[in-house]
């Protein structure tokens, strides 16, 4: 058993996502940074989409009531076990009674704690990813108690070199279904402008702030997915993220690659990005 002494800013259990129910309007959810989630699972020897604990900017403190093998990846939190600094992107052994404190992220937004055997939580519609309206608890709160799953028998890796969250500021994207609605000038502006990640960014969408003149009329409600970049009639740009709705009524000007969604998810408010439009 593992207990949360403090919850952190927004901590939840996420896995590879909830598939098969989008036609009923159920978002896919899942880890914001899939690559970091997968890495944490690979380190401890879990299948890559095993449930991990996702921490946001300010992490939780956990007390382990069992011995466990864990790994922490993603954003650069300052994790400590019993007040002693520990490394990211490596295997860590914690003992019964140990306290893990994630601290505050210095680089990036989302950090992942994988435990060998996975975090045990009831599946809802085939996934443990916590989401308001689907999960009985939309996120982890102070005092929450989690169980650790059975050990898997995959090979674990002691350490993975050359893994850091991407410092790239270029976000790869395809032209979206309504890209052609934009004027040539607007299309060029979309590619050449430096956008700021806005404060109102969360698991549903990242807002991009800018001072260019660009807009598009509303569309008849149509499918959207994580990585869809929506442009509103008043010029707001929003990149839909993992908890996005399944359909939307704003122009879909770009569609990020899967990897670009991971990269963007780690950008903090006031950081800048540019779109690299793939042809």
């Amino acid at each position, binding site marked *: 058993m593992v207990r949360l002494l403090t919850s952190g800013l927004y901590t939840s259990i996420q896995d590879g996502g909830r*598939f*098969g*129910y*989008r*036609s*009923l*309007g*159920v*978002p896919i959810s899942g880890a914001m940074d899939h690559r970091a989630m997968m890495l944490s699972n690979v380190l401890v020897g879990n299948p890559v989409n095993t449930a991990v604990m996702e921490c946001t900017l300010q992490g939780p403190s956990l007390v382990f009531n069992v011995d466990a093998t864990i790994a922490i990846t993603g954003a650069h939190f300052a994790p400590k076990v019993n007040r002693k600094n520990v490394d990211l992107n490596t295997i860590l052994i914690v003992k019964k009674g140990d306290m893990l404190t994630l601290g505050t992220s210095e680089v990036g937004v989302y950090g992942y704690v994988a435990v060998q055997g996975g975090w045990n939580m009831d599946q*809802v*519609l085939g996934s443990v990813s916590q989401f308001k*309206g*689907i999960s009985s608890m939309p996120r982890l709160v102070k005092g929450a108690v989690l169980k650790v799953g059975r050990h898997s028998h995959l090979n674990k890796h002691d350490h993975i070199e050359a893994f850091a969250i991407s410092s790239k500021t270029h976000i790869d994207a*395809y032209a979206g*279904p309504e890209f052609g609605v934009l004027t040539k000038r607007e299309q060029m502006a979309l590619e050449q402008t430096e956008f700021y990640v806005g404060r109102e960014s969360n698991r549903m969408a990242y807002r991009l702030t800018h001072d260019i003149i660009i807009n598009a009329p509303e*569309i*008849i*409600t*149509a*499918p959207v*997915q994580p*990585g*869809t970049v929506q442009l509103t009639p008043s010029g707001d740009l929003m990149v839909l993220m993992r908890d996005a*709705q*399944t*359909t939307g009524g704003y122009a879909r000007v770009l*569609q*990020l*690659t*899967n990897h670009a969604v991971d990269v963007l998810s780690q950008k903090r408010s006031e950081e800048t990005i540019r779109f690299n439009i793939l042809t």
Partner: protein
Amino acid sequence: MKLDVTYRVFGDHAVLLDWSPQINEQTHGWVLQIDHWLLLNFKNDIVETVRTYHSIAIYLHRDIVPQEFIQLIKTTTFIPSTTNNENTYLITIPVCYESSLAIDMDEVVRVSGLSSEHVVSLHTKVIYTIFFMGFLPGFPYLGGLTKELFIPRRDSPRSSIDKGSVAIGGVQTGIYPSNSPGGWHVIGKTPLVIFDINKSEPSIFKGVEKVQFRSISLTEFQSISSQVAAGKYSLEKEVWRG
């Protein structure tokens, strides 16, 4: 499949099919047929689909190349199926339109110039088509609203609309499956739980049904609420024969 459709890649692992952008029964009919055909014939390639008024997003497994999938469906003969017509149901949803549960009725009366009785009779006389599900888990987009009830959405959305609220917005009407912010006008409330995650089939709609509303009193609302809570309510449902 040769149809009046555009085929496009939609990100790394998806394909988007688009008919000309309009909201009508004919386009909806095509979307339903093709969606059904895709799910039946390419189930090994497709994770799931999301259909809307005039589009289908086809989300593919990661080992499927979207461009190749487009070629595949373009060169496969489309055979219209009759099976999805057989299973269309008309579901009757009881709604209490009394003022305590219809927070925006006064506004609708003011804007439309109709009496509240007239609003209720217009809203209950139509058989609506579920065009698709979206916005919230279990939210049905219903088409077929009478013109007299076309009212622009609220200027500023309400921060919370109660679960079960029945609302009108623009040319559409819908039912809120959970508490949520929303910009439509609430004209009543159903005692039914239309999306319940604890059931094996969480949504009472699959997204292909016809829906009609039936006006009930506050007393009936309370009685049905307790039947629902006790798991003793059976949905009013019949096969739809067009």
